[in-house]
């Protein structure tokens, strides 16, 4: 169409401006800052790879990385797992589907901070809901947020929060499978379990891959659950909270930026790895 170039420019410009000023420029600036030792915003000194060398000797960062990986394991196993199971199960029923779909999504719309606060009330040693239950059964109270439990205690709300999200994504993927595939399976006398493992799951494999990628990158962004429930204490520090502490609490912008760059690279590598491991031929129908 005549004059299209003008419109392309005009329509893309505002978004491009926003992304450049608040995303691309800060991203490269972070990269730049990661080569500096900083004191506030005004005093900085080029230190080469120092911050990155420090990354590899920083024991706390190593611990935070391991905790994040452990959290990721729970997320992949339980969050994605439960979502898939629920999606497969709900295909097998005819009534109340809308009800389940609606309530499964409840946690997704609630803020992580509110959920975290809710779990603070659950885990409280003296008066929390869990120890209340134990007390009713005459069992001794438990420190839910001590060294051995803290990370798992944070993992539970983290997992619970987004099951509904992936559940809906799986349902959507499954609804794209043509009905005659199932009809054929039924005529062949294939049972429900076999139908799920041999038909449904292979057919939605590309969507499972997307969900796994989202889950991996999502876990790297976990912040509020850890911050509100444990503040990263007792072996529950994750990369997000550690970066926040270094960059914002200690105001160490250079090292904080180096951690952020590390997180991005780590995330991309994990996502690539997952996609490689799950490599299959794409199915189109």
């Amino acid at each position, binding site marked *: 169409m005549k004059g299209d170039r003008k*419109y392309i420019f*005009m*329509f893309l410009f*505002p978004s491009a401006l*926003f*992304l450049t*000023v*608040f*995303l*691309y420029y*800060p*991203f490269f*600036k*972070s990269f730049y800052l990661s080569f500096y030792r900083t004191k506030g915003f005004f005093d900085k000194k080029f230190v080469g790879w120092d911050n990155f060398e420090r990354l590899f000797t920083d024991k706390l960062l190593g611990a935070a990385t391991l905790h994040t990986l452990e959290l990721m394991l729970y997320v992949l196993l339980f969050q994605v797992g*439960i979502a898939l199971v*629920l999606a497969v*199960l709900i295909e097998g*029923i005819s009534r*109340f589907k809308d009800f389940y779909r*609606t*309530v*499964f*999504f*409840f946690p*997704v*719309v*609630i*803020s992580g*901070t*509110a959920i975290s*606060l*809710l779990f*603070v*009330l659950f885990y*409280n040693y003296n008066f929390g809901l869990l120890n*209340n239950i134990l007390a009713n059964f005459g069992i001794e109270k438990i420190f839910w947020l001590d060294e051995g439990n803290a990370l798992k205690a944070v993992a539970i709300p983290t997992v*619970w929060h987004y099951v*509904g999200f992936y559940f*809906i*994504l799986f349902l*959507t*993927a499954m609804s*794209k499978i043509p009905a005659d595939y199932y009809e054929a399976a039924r005529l062949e006398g294939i049972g*429900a379990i076999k139908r799920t493992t041999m038909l449904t799951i292979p057919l939605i494999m590309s969507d499972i891959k997307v969900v796994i990628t989202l889950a991996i990158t999502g876990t790297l*962004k976990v*912040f*509020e659950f850890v*911050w*509100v429930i444990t503040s990263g204490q007792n072996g529950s520090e994750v990369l*997000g909270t550690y970066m926040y502490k270094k*960059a*914002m609490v200690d105001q160490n*912008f250079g090292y*904080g930026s180096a*951690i*952020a*760059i590390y997180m*991005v690279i780590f*995330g991309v590598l994990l*996502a690539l790895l997952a996609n490689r491991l799950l490599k299959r031929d794409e199915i189109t129908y």
Partner: protein
Amino acid sequence: MEPTISVEPNVRRGEYRRFKLSTVFIYLVLTAWAMTTIYPLFWIVNNSFKVSRDVMNNSFSIAKEFNMINYTTAFDRINIGKSYVNSLIMSGSAVILVLIFGGLAAYVLARFNFAGKKVLYSLLYATLLIPAFATVVPVYELLIKTGTVNTYWGLILPHTAGNLTFAILVMAGYMSTIPKELEEAAFIDGSNRWQMFYKVFVPISRPVFASASIFVFLWSYNDLFSALIFVNKENVRPIVALLNEISSQYGTDFGLMATAITLTVIPVLIVYLFISKYIQQGLTEGAVKG
């Protein structure tokens, strides 16, 4: 003939029973999960009407009377109403900006042919991989320099940028499925691209606008990390930052905490119940065509 007839119903009944058992099992599992998503909400609302002592000693009992003391405290002492308004203004503005600017960009991606479109798509997908952590320090610096830190713009601008990419991709996915005939009609009418956008594309794309705005709103309203850094002064503090504040300052007042959570969660849930169809539809469109 006799044997066949007598056998047939038996087989049927057997099948019917097995079918039923597995169905019961499915309903049990689904209901169990539904309980985990419903009961905590009930628990928190229920406890918001109790004084702290009762929350601590007996959090399971049903509140016998609607004790509003926590609610008065929440509004009078910690000024939760102000934070509400702050959240609505900032997240609402981010949604509006994302819809306008993202909508225009999505329209270009969906309908125009130009060199570099593929590259642009790849760039947008790559952009999704940039977490807030990797931009926060320079953005903070920028906001300080421009004097927008601890003002509404201090959250609106980063949130608009942070959600644009997702919104553009989802909206472009939806718009590219709109039949071309519709705009040809508008073209013959002599509309230019701008008129085509708001006369043809905006009305048809309402579902995807709706779902994109819901997600942008939720992500913005729920983002504690940015709120703590960019807008953590009392006069601009959004509700998540206030919640965080309450947990550190009033961590022993269980009744007040229950109320603060209730006040944060319930309005969003009520809105969600009215528009849940859009959300799921939007996710569907995004996932199918994105």
